[in-house]
């Protein structure tokens, strides 16, 4: 859990990632605003869940925080040092402290390398010249930590199941003992029974190593399992950010309420009695987002103000912020 007294590991301020779109020669230059002014702090050992539907910018945000893709504006401060000011070599050095795992575990592994070579690769990069026996010992240790028997060290990725491949990805990410791990939909491609194994593994590793996680997922039940705080993104902007129990029990943004009420519950009586906040229409194009509040085109309680004024992130409580003009009355209005 975050300690308010400790300094943040990572501070993101007004981060923007805009991608240029191909357009005609003399036409106005257009951009996709994938991430549009996101700010948050992440503390050592904390898990921040990022949820949202496809196209909300959650994966882009995860990559931009690691500087894997360039940002258009804003700041990412790592342990007090702005990454924008770092040189390429400095950034490379910092990368050993921040790692990432991906959704498709098999696609993220080189099919021509053995598991041992895959897990050892970060050591080759950051600790070159390490003796082979030491390196092997480190690889075996990393494999065992994620629950992979060490006798599999000479096997190739295609010989493993999806869950095991994800374990290999985690072993590779953790061998350098990073402080931050970005998990981009790490269990979405896995079966339910395997998904639970990976979630428990990530939780255990986090406690053991005081690792901070940014856990990106579209699955609200999974995010609830693992997160200390949860951020809801919509069209590149934060709709709501709060501590886990607060956001699931007391969601304020109409979008958060719609998302939560749409998740099917594996309980026939509850599921059939559930009241749902229905949205209208589809996600608008991020090239040409709506004026004012970006959510207003699908919001069931939109008013004129939403079209004219961009809502700011307002505090509900000290750690709960929401960007909606009508957050005070939203629950009442939507539950009618």
């Amino acid at each position, binding site marked *: 859990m975050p300690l308010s007294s400790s300094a943040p590991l990572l501070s993101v301020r007004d981060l923007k990632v805009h991608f240029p779109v191909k357009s005609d020669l003399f036409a106005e230059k257009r951009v996709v605003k994938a991430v549009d002014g996101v700010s948050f702090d992440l503390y050592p050992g904390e898990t921040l869940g990022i949820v949202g*539907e*496809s196209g909300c910018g959650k994966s882009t945000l995860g990559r931009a925080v690691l500087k894997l893709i360039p940002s258009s504006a804003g700041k990412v401060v790592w342990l007090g040092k702005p990454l924008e000011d770092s040189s390429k070599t400095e950034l490379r050095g910092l990368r050993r402290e921040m790692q990432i795992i991906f959704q498709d575990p098999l696609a993220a592994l080189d099919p021509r390398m053995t598991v041992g070579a895959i897990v050892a690769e970060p050591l080759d990069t950051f600790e070159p010249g390490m003796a082979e026996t030491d390196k092997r010992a480190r690889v075996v240790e990393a494999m065992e930590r994620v629950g992979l028997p060490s006798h599999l060290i000479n096997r190739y990725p295609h010989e493993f*199941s999806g*869950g*095991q491949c994800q374990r290999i990805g985690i072993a590779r990410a953790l061998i350098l003992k990073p402080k931050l791990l970005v998990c981009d939909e790490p269990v979405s491609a896995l*079966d*339910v*029974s*395997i*998904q*639970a*194994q990976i*979630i*428990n593994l990530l*939780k255990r590793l986090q406690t053991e190593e005081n690792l901070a996680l940014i856990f990106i997922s*579209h*699955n*609200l*039940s*999974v995010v*609830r*399992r693992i997160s200390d705080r949860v951020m809801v993104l919509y069209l590149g902007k934060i709709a709501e950010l709060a501590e886990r129990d607060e956001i*699931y029990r007391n969601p304020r943004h109409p979008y958060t309420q*719609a*998302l*939560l*009420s*749409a*998740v*099917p*519950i*594996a*309980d*026939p*009586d*509850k*599921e*059939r009695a*559930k009241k*749902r906040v*229905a*949205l209208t*229409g*589809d*996600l608008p194009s991020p090239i040409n987002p709506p004026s004012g509040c970006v959510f207003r085109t699908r919001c069931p309680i939109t008013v004129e103000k939403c079209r004219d004024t961009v809502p700011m992130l307002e505090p509900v409580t000290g750690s709960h912020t929401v960007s909606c003009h009508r957050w005070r009355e939203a629950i009442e209005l939507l539950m009618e």
Partner: protein
Amino acid sequence: MTVSQELPAWKTGHQGPLLIVDQLVTRFATPDGTVSAVNGVSFEVSKGETIGIVGESGSGKSQVLMSIMGLLPHNGSSTGSVQFDGKELLGMPRDQLNKIRGTRMAMIFQDPMTALNPYLTVGQQLTEVLTYHLSTNPAMAREQAREVLEQVHIPEPGKRLGMYPHELSGGMRQRVMIAMGMLCRPDLLIADEPTTALDVTIQAEILDLLAEQQAVTGTSIILVTHDLGVVAGLCDRVMVMYGGRIVEQGPVRDIFYNPQHPYTRALLMSMPRLDDDLAGDLPTIAGQPPNLAHMPPGCAFAPRCSFVSEQCRLAVPPLREIAPGRAKACTLDRLVA
């Protein structure tokens, strides 16, 4: 969810089952030998009923559907019996089968982008169904296509008829698929993971739409999914599959509130839910799903089961009735919660 637990009159009428699947076995010849995807599956679907088939990847749930629809690839073959409204579908000549498929039986796939033809407009694909199957004249077909798009709540249906699939969003494309499936008012709608590729708010809309269409037309639905929440909201009865077999089946409330097969119970417990208490670790199922090319001689779940006995490893436990309308394939007499 708009589905009620009580069955309306047209669901309880004493008619013969619409679909009877008996001892269905589906095998695939692969370079590594024969793979048994479906190993003796039997079930019935009554008129107006919604059946859920749940299972993880490799459980054979999708191959049951493909076998029923006669859509197996060239290296696949089925034995057993699939009777639709009294007619045997397995081994039926293709031209006869095509008179049933699309009109009386329709299928909705997981990925609408690959299931729709990218070269044809929505209107062309919808009217094709009507002109081909029902020999409707083009102008009337177009009007019916517009109507059906309206029924699945597509805004500006007239305009959408001229659009290509890539011009529509994912949710809209899935609506077009459902519209296409419902065009000829089929008696049986088969849906293979119809909402898996969609966002959760869109998923909820599509599930409501399926329930709504069923209430209007009285279609029977077979819904295949890995998401137990979807089954809980929509289905009357549930079949749980593992290793190509049905391991448990029964009414939806019984399956969720009193699971009797260790796999069903483990599956329900290992799924993170919005309403669980978050105490301790999420229960897991140890090990991996079985390899269909190398099945163990006994119960396929035995290597992962916490109640396993010697008996389980020797022979496959048969699916036996444990209460009216409920069956399980397990040697245990009773599983106490």
